[in-house]
């Protein structure tokens, strides 16, 4: 029969009506709604049991103890481990997202020579060639590690130089080390027993020293109290986080820290506020007042406040002899609550050799911005390529939690510590540490394990200190050095007893001149990698909380 338009219309209408009595539309509706709720291209977290592993952060010298949540063999979360005697479970903001660093887009995945990809063998050949042609320099960013031992002895064997790139906190101690002719690394701050801290721009609450150590001290003894047990006087041009959290903030003109320190010293001496005698600084109070922008009375009051509640610790943000010298006047050197000696075998490396270096090798712990002086071939170990680097060779180093290492005493610590950080991850592509690289060239170098054993032996023989883990075990109660190493490898931290603060002879022939070097404070400054975890970078990009950091120019 012939189908008329009318039949067609009726048919369609019937069909549409009929469809609604079939499951088809409802199933479609259901599927659509489910699809709209999870798009296939949106990544979903891995499923699987979550376990927790103990580890240590190796991204700065502080070596904070970590609890790493692992799922399906990958780190999925990080928190501090409260058993650590110094960090007490605190972490810096960057640490909480560090577990994502290894997948950062700028991760260095292959050996690169002048921007082109190369092989490990080529790199090794090139370095051996350099060694044969002249002295090489080895730069270590974090001395005192087992790896450092290897680096150092390599330099010694090849009569090259072994240099340490010091951090700001360490540089700040340099003058005192010089006057007391002690290595920098055997000096520390006894913050726990001090009553007044005078900080010349040191970012105490913003990444200074060991995360958690000072901040917790501050929050227990200083925060928000009108007359706190611990007085913090922050002297700096602009109000910083530390200034806001301090007991007093003293705004002074840029670069006049040394002058102010001198004038304070003058007042302390002239008005007999301190018993210790020292050479009279040349600076006059009136002059200082003009330069610093403070009134003479203000400076005088400041001097009185400083002397009032001792022990008083004077900190500078970076190397500044004039500021450091105040500690001598206030008798804070070698006294409880001041600058104390700690058991540490590290010594300041020897001076540079006569003839210029043929090549220099930078360990991955050396801050990215470090620029070797002079023209030589540069071998740079790094896990991330921060860009703008002039190194001839970029050598991929292990990333976060990928390098087994030991952790010597962190800067600013009053007592010696020792810990061993296991590697709980392995890089999916060939990486080497500087030490491993050198070991391949010179097999006589001490291996990591040898040095670690030796160190454990030594600690065991000293029979001092305690192992801090879930519970505390005095070293004396340990059967052998092996047991000690075992417990350290299991995540324990050895904490030495406070060294006797006496025997820190320190004399001043004349009042030192100030060094204007000043460093702007931020967590990012003590941070060795050139990049920050994406989630930490959010702070700078997606909120107005922080201004983008100026990284320290070592």
């Amino acid at each position, binding site marked *: 029969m012939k189908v008329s338009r*009318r039949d067609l*219309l009726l048919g369609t209408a019937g069909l549409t009506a009929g469809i609604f009595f079939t499951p088809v539309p409802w199933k479609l509706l259901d599927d*659509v*709604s489910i*699809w*709209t*709720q999870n798009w296939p291209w949106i990544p979903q977290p891995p499923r699987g049991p979550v376990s927790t592993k103990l580890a240590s952060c190796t991204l700065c010298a502080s070596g904070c103890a970590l609890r790493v949540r692992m799922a399906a063999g990958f780190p999925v979360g990080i928190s501090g481990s409260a058993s650590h005697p110094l960090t007490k479970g605190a972490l810096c903001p960057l640490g909480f997202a560090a577990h994502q660093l290894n997948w950062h887009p700028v991760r260095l995945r292959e050996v690169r020579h002048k921007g082109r990809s190369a092989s490990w063998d080529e790199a090794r050949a090139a370095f051996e060639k350099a060694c044969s042609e002249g002295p090489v320099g080895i730069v270590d960013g974090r001395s005192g590690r087992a790896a450092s031992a290897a680096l150092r002895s390599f330099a010694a064997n090849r009569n090259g130089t072994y240099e340490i790139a010091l951090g700001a906190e360490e540089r700040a101690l340099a003058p005192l080390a010089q006057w007391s002719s002690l290595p920098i690394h055997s000096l520390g701050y006894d913050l726990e027993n001090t009553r007044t801290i005078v900080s010349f721009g040191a970012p105490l609450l913003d990444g200074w020293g060991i995360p958690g150590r000072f901040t917790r001290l501050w929050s227990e003894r200083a925060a928000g109290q009108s007359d706190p047990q611990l007085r913090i006087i922050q002297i700096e041009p602009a109000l910083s986080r530390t200034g806001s959290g301090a007991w007093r903030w003293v705004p002074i003109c840029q670069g006049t820290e040394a002058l102010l320190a001198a004038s304070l010293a003058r007042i302390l001496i002239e008005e007999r506020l301190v018993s210790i005698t020292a050479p009279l600084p040349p600076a006059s109070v009136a002059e200082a007042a003009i330069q610093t922008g403070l009134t003479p009375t203000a400076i005088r009051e400041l001097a009185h406040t400083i002397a009032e509640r001792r022990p008083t610790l004077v900190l500078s943000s970076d190397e500044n002899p004039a500021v450091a010298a105040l500690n001598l006047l206030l008798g804070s050197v070698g006294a409880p609550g001041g600058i104390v000696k700690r058991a540490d075998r590290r010594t300041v490396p020897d001076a540079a050799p006569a003839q210029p270096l043929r090549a220099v090798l930078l360990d991955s712990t050396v801050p990215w911005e470090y620029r070797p002086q002079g023209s030589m071939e540069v071998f740079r170990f790094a896990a991330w390529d921060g860009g703008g680097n002039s190194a001839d060779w970029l050598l991929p180093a292990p990333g976060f939690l990928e390098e087994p290492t030991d952790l010597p005493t962190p800067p600013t610590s009053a007592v010696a510590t020792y810990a061993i950080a296991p590697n709980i991850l392995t890089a999916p592509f060939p990486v080497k540490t500087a030490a491993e690289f050198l070991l391949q060239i010179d097999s006589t170098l001490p291996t990591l394990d040898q040095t670690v054993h030796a160190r454990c032996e030594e600690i065991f023989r000293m029979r001092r200190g305690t192992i801090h883990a879930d519970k505390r075990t005095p070293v004396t109660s340990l059967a052998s050095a092996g047991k000690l190493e075992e417990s350290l490898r299991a995540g324990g931290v050895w904490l030495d007893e406070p060294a006797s603060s006496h025997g820190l002879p320190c004399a001043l022939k004349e009042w030192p001149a100030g060094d204007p070097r000043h460093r702007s404070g931020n967590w990012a400054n003590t941070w060795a990698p050139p990049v920050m975890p994406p989630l930490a970078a959010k702070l700078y990009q997606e909120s107005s909380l922080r201004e983008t950091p100026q990284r320290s120019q070592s």
Partner: protein
Amino acid sequence: MSDLAIVDRRFIARGEERASTLKFTLWLAPWVALLAFGIYAAGLCLFYGLNQTNMDNRFAFGLWIFADLSVIAMGAGAFFTGFLVYILKQEELKPVLNSAVVVGLVCYSGAVAVLMVDVGQPLRAWFTFWHPNTHSMLTEVTFCITCYLIVLVLEYLPVLLRNRQLQKIPSFFIFEHQFHKLVPVLAAVGAFLSFFHQGSLGGLYGVLRGRPFAFREHFAIWPTTFFLFILSAIAVGPSFLLLVVAAAEALTGKKLVEESVLRKLGFISGILLGVYVAAKSIDTLIWLNITSPSVGFAPWEYYAYKPFGSAILFAEIVLLGLLPAVLLILPRTRARRGWLLFAAVLTCCGVLLNRFVLTVQTLALPTLAFDDFLKYVPSWQEVATFGAVVAYGVIVYSLSYRYLPLFGHSKGEDKHVSVG
């Protein structure tokens, strides 16, 4: 005559004078271009997400929500004229009824289209019907607008079927013939729905306890803005319709409806506007002196930020409220076409300003002690999408005017002016 012209001519009702095909095409061309560009912009937003706009977490509503509120207020002419003609039996308004329907349809469908771009997950929009939260004004709005859009389409259907070619198909003609007998029912339903969602749109902001600038006292479950929006909508609706018809007359150079009809529209608009202004003034006084201070916000603070000075309040209530109301109510000014149109324009501007203040100023003003006053400038994607709605409106109205008996047949028989 070219073939296109022949075909075109065949769809134009017998004896109706319309612009030549070429002229009409030239008129449409720019609007079509604008529409296409806007659709492209909207496509960007749908494909790449709303990061294409300049909205942000603090300015979560932008140009689009302002446009929706305004456009829907303008579209109020549709339901209100229907209400006047069918419920209140104001027969003399019949000639503009079809125009009102087209305007309404355009406004509402346009608004819904923009909303679909505005939400982050358009494909989930229907969840509102699945998990509706009966306490949310937005739910009420969604339900009402959806229903009313259906009603508008149904009301537009008869007008569409009156097209010369379509009505040659018997079943269409008969359906139209039967359907338009029942249209008064739809008009009643439409009026009911509209009263509600116009109100709910106002309620959207009146209930924002967290935004003292917008929060108002409640009657029963509704904040005062609920009632103010109804008033302002039915006040502006006729004015806007008046302007549309006037524009059509200007463009076609024909007298489409009796002057008396326009005056009547103006008068209705004027009276309602007067009532609105009175109510609005009382509401503002209560809010400034009681509501706002009681939650710790001194009223003067709202107007401490330029350009949103207290001048904006004066403009909204007096300049664009009281003034046009008076102009429309006084017979002498109403009788002059110039004044009539001028007053109608003012009325529209007044309501636009009101919607602007409620949507934009509310979000720009800080709430926390440490907030700043915020600025927001729509991105070109937002503007283009908005432009597309305008173009869409012009195109639909032009086509309707050309091919449908919007103003009845010039041959006068209006027993079949289908409505709505």
